[in-house]
């Protein structure tokens, strides 16, 4: 496992600013927590794929397989009442932030017991109790929304941090630039978490993004920007902690570019033919969840029995959630009258 040295020294790419704040090393409990959340994401994703394949749930599924560590580390570093805004590829962020499995699965299945009563679906999972306040299906749109939550926190002095999660493709949308500019001007307690998985739909980073790094774009907005190995739990957790501490201290926003990879293409069923075979093979050889598991064992931080018990518990909870979701009723048609406005409407 990397020690996170690159964080302390700052990335080497030109134009990327360096951290000035230091954080300590994550303790054992923190690492096990990151592993547990990452495993939950991995196993839940695997189950979605098998349930969708079986035809029991028909849902558009944007798999985060390969990006688990990024969200798990952020989820551990945040408080449960901090805000998270994520995107259609958001399962990892939802689970890492604490959205309950039953409500999540029931929402994927379009049932009345889902977190959004079946009215939002996978692309719009919302669970304010976990801090997941917005999930958007529009690339880049969560970025300016995060500023409003951050502004509200400044007005209320509630000490909350808002994280807005997005992909590398979103950094080419105007909303990214407008959002970072305003956040920096207003010194908002917002963290812009770019999960650079190398592909925007089917277009590679190099074909779609003129800048050598996304982190480097932060310099245009006088904001710290760091590029980290998002698949390294220690490096990722430290980057999150530094940014969170800055935000809570009133020092303003940070852009984190977490380098990662997306194993299951853009949407479930995507063959991924546009990804060079060598690139895919190399990423798979460094599959972050098994690699983290191995490092915990080899570092003597966890025993095989402990990790196996965590995995077995998660599998059981997922099975319970699947059964709950599939046994739940669909929403009544009368739901169309509700939630269009606060007051009931005649649709």
């Amino acid at each position: 496992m990397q020690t996170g040295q690159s964080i302390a020294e700052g990335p080497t790419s030109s134009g990327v600013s360096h951290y000035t704040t230091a954080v300590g090393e994550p303790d054992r409990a923190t690492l096990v927590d990151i592993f547990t959340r990452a495993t939950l994401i991995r196993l839940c994703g695997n189950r979605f794929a098998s349930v969708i394949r079986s035809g029991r749930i028909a849902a558009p599924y944007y798999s985060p397989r390969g990006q688990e560590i990024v969200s798990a580390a952020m989820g551990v570093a945040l408080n449960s009442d901090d805000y998270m805004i994520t995107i259609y590829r958001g399962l990892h962020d939802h689970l890492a932030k604490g959205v309950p499995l039953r409500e999540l699965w029931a929402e994927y299945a379009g049932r009345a017991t889902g977190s959004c009563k079946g009215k939002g679906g996978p692309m719009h999972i919302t669970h304010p109790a976990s801090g997941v306040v917005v999930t958007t299906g529009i690339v880049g749109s969560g970025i300016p929304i995060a500023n409003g939550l951050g502004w509200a926190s400044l007005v209320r002095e509630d000490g909350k941090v808002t994280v807005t999660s997005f992909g590398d493709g979103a950094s080419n949308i105007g909303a990214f630039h407008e959002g970072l500019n305003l956040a920096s001007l207003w010194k908002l307690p917002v963290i812009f978490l770019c999960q650079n998985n190398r592909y925007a739909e089917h277009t590679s980073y190099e074909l779609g993004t003129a800048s050598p790094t996304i982190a480097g774009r932060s310099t245009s907005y006088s904001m710290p920007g760091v590029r980290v190995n998002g698949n390294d739990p220690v490096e990722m957790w430290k980057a999150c902690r530094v940014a969170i501490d800055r935000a809570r201290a009133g020092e303003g926003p940070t852009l984190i570019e977490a380098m990662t990879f997306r194993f299951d293409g853009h949407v479930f069923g995507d063959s991924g033919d546009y990804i060079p075979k060598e690139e895919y093979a190399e990423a798979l050889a460094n599959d972050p969840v098994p690699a983290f598991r191995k490092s915990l064992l080899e570092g003597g931080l966890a025993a095989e029995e402990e990790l196996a018990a965590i995995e077995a518990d998660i599998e059981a909870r997922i099975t319970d959630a699947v059964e709950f979701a599939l046994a739940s009723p669909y929403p009544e048609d009368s739901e169309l009258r509700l939630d269009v406005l606060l007051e009931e409407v005649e649709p």
Partner: protein
Amino acid sequence: MNAATDTNVRMITGPEATNMALDEALAADPHVLVFGEDVADGQGGGIVHGTKGLSAKYGDLRVRSTPISEQAILGAAVGAAVAGMRPVAEIMLMNFLTVGMDQLVNHAAKIRFMSGGQTGVPLTIRTMSGAGGGFGGQHSDMLEAWLAHVPGLKVVVPSDPTEWKGLLTACIFDDNPCVFIESTMMVMSGMKTPAPEPGYSIPLGKANVARVGTDVSVIGYGRPIADVHSLAERLGREGISVEVIDLRTIAPLDMKTVLASVAKTKRAVIVHEAVRSFGVGAEIAAHINEDLFGQLAAPVRRVASKNTPVPYSSTLEKAFMWSEANLESAVRSTLTGK
């Protein structure tokens, strides 16, 4: 309005109505936030001074100028509203709303529904538009039909400064996303009507029977209402009794009031500043057809601006715009069948 002739009554302009409504709301509720391009006192308190004095009174944290950045403004309004605040954002002119339409259409309008009612978006967007001032194609469009076509938004258009104050107050304290469309020409002409009492609020979603009549219903909203009143006054002297319906709120549309009026008069003319095609007039005419077919004494008429971009040249702009003369001939034709 009789009060207008009483010299003791304070008269207000549209921007003064804005100021009254915002001042009251900021004082009454710490969740109210006001922001937009140039709204703080350091930047003049708004291009037409509607927000003058508010940042001095309530501080720069609650009343903030923004960069020219409509996606950032509208996105921040959505986020602040989701966090439980009552943001009032200014988008200087309605055409600039198009730059940030994603936030309004995909987020403000849908977040309550998509979250199953867990989160709401109690924001207000103030914006200004309308042709007649020589501002050409990109500073004059009335786009209320676009917005009204999106379920989840409330769309409000005041017909004079008194109404402006009451409807803006209602928008700010409504728990749904509201777009409040102010009239550039109402501001430029310096139109004044009596200042209402503090706290004055007009319920949203309810049309106003602004003048009772029996021969024909004229249904409109916003700036044309003043001209509809003067036409009704003139026709009244000929013995033609015009009922004037001021919609106040375009969405939700109060068809109940409109249908009750048309059921009585059997004749309807709809007037709006926006271009005719696919407009609010078409929607109202369709409703009247569905509910009152067979009871009408004449076809429903629409008076609207022509279906072109807003032209610059004053002669062309005049030819483009709806006019009181068009309205008069439409009203007369519903009465005579010619």
